[in-house]
C-alpha cells in the first residue's frame, strides 16, 4: 500500500523572502485578531507578496550553487551568518502567515503556484 500523502511540492520559494509590513483593512477570520501586528493584505498586496516570494525563490535557485562553492573560511563564516539570518527571517514570516485568515493564505498559495507554473512554462518556451 502506498504511504505517500498528497501535496507534491514545487520547490519552496518563500524561504528567504522578506515581507514588508503591509497596510490595509483588518479582517476577521480563524486565528486572526484585531490589533495583530500583521494585517491581511488586499488581493493586490497578496499578489505583491507572492511576487516577492517568487523573486526570492528565483534568486535562490540561480544563486544556490554559487553560494555553496565559496571557498575561504571567512566567506564560509559570512555565508553561515546569512543562513542564520535567512532562517530567522523565514520563521518570522511563517509565524506572521500563520496568524492570517486561512482564506488569505489559500488564495496566496494558489496564486503563487500559478505564477510558478507560468514561469516554468515560459522558461521551457525560451529554451
Amino acid at each position, binding site marked *: 500500500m502506498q*504511504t505517500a500523502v*498528497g501535496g507534491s511540492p514545487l520547490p519552496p520559494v518563500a524561504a528567504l523572502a522578506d515581507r514588508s509590513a503591509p497596510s490595509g483593512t483588518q479582517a476577521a477570520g480563524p486565528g486572526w485578531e484585531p490589533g495583530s501586528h500583521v494585517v491581511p493584505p488586499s488581493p493586490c498586496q497578496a499578489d505583491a507578496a507572492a511576487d516577492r516570494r517568487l523573486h526570492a525563490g528565483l534568486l535562490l535557485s540561480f544563486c544556490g550553487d554559487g553560494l555553496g562553492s565559496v571557498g575561504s573560511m571567512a566567506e564560509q563564516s559570512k555565508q553561515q551568518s546569512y543562513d542564520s539570518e535567512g532562517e530567522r527571517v523565514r520563521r518570522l514570516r511563517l509565524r506572521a502567515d500563520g496568524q492570517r485568515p486561512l482564506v488569505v493564505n489559500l488564495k496566496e498559495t494558489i496564486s503563487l503556484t500559478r505564477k510558478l507554473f507560468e514561469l516554468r512554462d515560459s522558461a521551457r518556451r525560451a529554451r
Partner: protein
Amino acid sequence: MSAPSFDQLLVRLVQADVRFVVIGGLALGSWGVVRGTKDCDIVPGPAPENLDMLAHVAAELGGHVQLGESLLGSERSIAALLRSGERALIATQLGDLDVVQGLEGVLPYAELRAKAIDVEMADVTIAICALEHLRTMKRAAGRPRDLVDLDDLDAAQPGQSRS
C-alpha cells in the same frame, strides 16, 4: 497543461455538490506555510453518488487518469476507478486533482470533515482539513518534505504544539 487554476477547480467541485476535504499543499498553505504545489489534494466523501459526481466534474473539465499504459478519460471509467477506492490523479484543464483515498496514514473523510475548517472563497464554502489532522497525516507520510513541512507548521502555528 497550462498554469493551474486550483481556485476555479475547487469552486467547480463545490458548485456540483461534491463533498470533499482539502489536504496536502493547499491545506498546508492555508495554515500559513505558503509554497507552490503541483496538485490539488482532496479526500472525497466515500458515497458512490458523491464519487460519481466527482467523476462527472472531472470529465467535464477534460479530466483523464494515466494508469500504466491506459488512459482513462470517460466519466464512467473515472467513476469506476474512484468507486474501487483507488487513489486517482486526475489531470484536468484547471490543474491536477489528486483524489486521495485508500492510503495508509490518510484519515477517513468523516473524521477529516468533522474537524475541517470551512473557508469562504468565491462565494462557495471549501473545507480545509484541521491543523491537527494535517500534522497527523504529515507525520504518517514521513517523507523528508513532510518533516520540513511539519517544522514549518510549528513555526507558523507556535501556539499549537505538536501532539
